[in-house]
């Protein structure tokens, strides 16, 4: 069986065995999806082949790419350059859907509100050592969050396709978070505790669904 290890790794889509480093934490969203799939399989429920139902897209794999970006000095509540390594996706796999997950942390009675406004903009070809991006690029998502807690999900299919067309090795996104006091847009203040907590604890993960045409020759059409 030891001889079969290389073949098995290739079958998994890996060139070599991952080095014995610290095991990576599994994002909760992937844990949940894996558990649901296992339960469905145990119950004998059939799945549509070559479909990532969780993102409503064709595909056979779902990747959680960790954010390798950094906080930016800003007058906002929080501004962060989010950077995702797209080179982790082999050339033979086609990205079909992307969802940004922003973990805003737990909810407590003391920390209910104020509301937040989030803007995610595309940063052309970000480099980790290139410093903060010059100006904000095209906004790809804008969202009001009346009660900031838990994981906020933002669909980013357009941004991913844009990056894929230009063969970028990284997807760079500028996340700008503003506080909306009393629910009135435009009256931005800086409640220090909430912003400090967000700056300390905010975690971002990019979920990417991909399709390997060699494995999925006739993917099911996504449901409208």
């Amino acid at each position, binding site marked *: 069986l030891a001889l079969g*290890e290389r073949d098995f790794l290739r079958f998994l889509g*890996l060139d070599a*065995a991952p080095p014995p480093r610290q095991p990576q934490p599994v994002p909760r969203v992937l844990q949940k999806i894996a558990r649901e*799939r296992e339960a469905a*399989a145990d119950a004998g429920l059939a799945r549509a082949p070559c479909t990532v139902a969780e993102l409503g897209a064709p595909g*056979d794999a779902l*990747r*959680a790419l*960790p954010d390798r970006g950094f906080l930016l000095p800003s007058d906002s509540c929080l501004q962060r350059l989010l950077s995702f390594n797209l080179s*982790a996706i082999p050339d033979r796999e086609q990205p079909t859907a992307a969802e940004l997950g922003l973990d805003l942390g737990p909810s407590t009675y003391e920390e209910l509100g104020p509301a937040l406004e989030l803007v995610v903009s595309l940063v052309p070809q970000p480099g980790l050592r290139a410093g903060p991006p010059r100006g904000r690029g095209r906004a790809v998502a804008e969202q009001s969050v009346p009660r900031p807690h838990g994981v906020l999900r933002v669909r980013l299919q357009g941004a991913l396709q844009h990056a894929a067309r230009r063969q970028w090795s990284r997807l760079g996104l500028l996340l700008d978070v503003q506080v909306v006091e009393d629910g009135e847009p435009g009256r931005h203040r800086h409640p220090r505790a909430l912003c400090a907590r967000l700056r300390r604890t905010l975690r971002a993960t990019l979920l990417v669904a991909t399709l390997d045409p060699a494995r999925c020759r006739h993917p099911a059409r996504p449901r409208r």
Partner: protein
Amino acid sequence: AVPAAPQAASRSLCHRHQLFISFRDLGWHKWIIAPKGFMANYCQGECPLSVAAYLNSSNYAFMQALMQVVDPTVSPAVCVPTKLSPISMLYQDNGDNVILRHYEDMVVDECGCG
């Protein structure tokens, strides 16, 4: 004429055998996060003419078994999976990314002559 159905299932006839693949035993648990292993199973057994018509078989399996009786140089019908189910595997790649991949047709649910 259709051969008579076998009276009792013989151990040597084509059927599904249980096989659990433990990733820990293989040392693959270092990158495969879940599941810990899976019930892969496999098909093994003979497909003689007398059972080729009954064991979840294709019509061609029966024809092949018939041809083998007439001409022993023809290879016999073989015991193959006739129903497979998928599994999803959660694993880590070389770049610290966690991947959930769906693999169709990984678990043998039923066997038959083909």
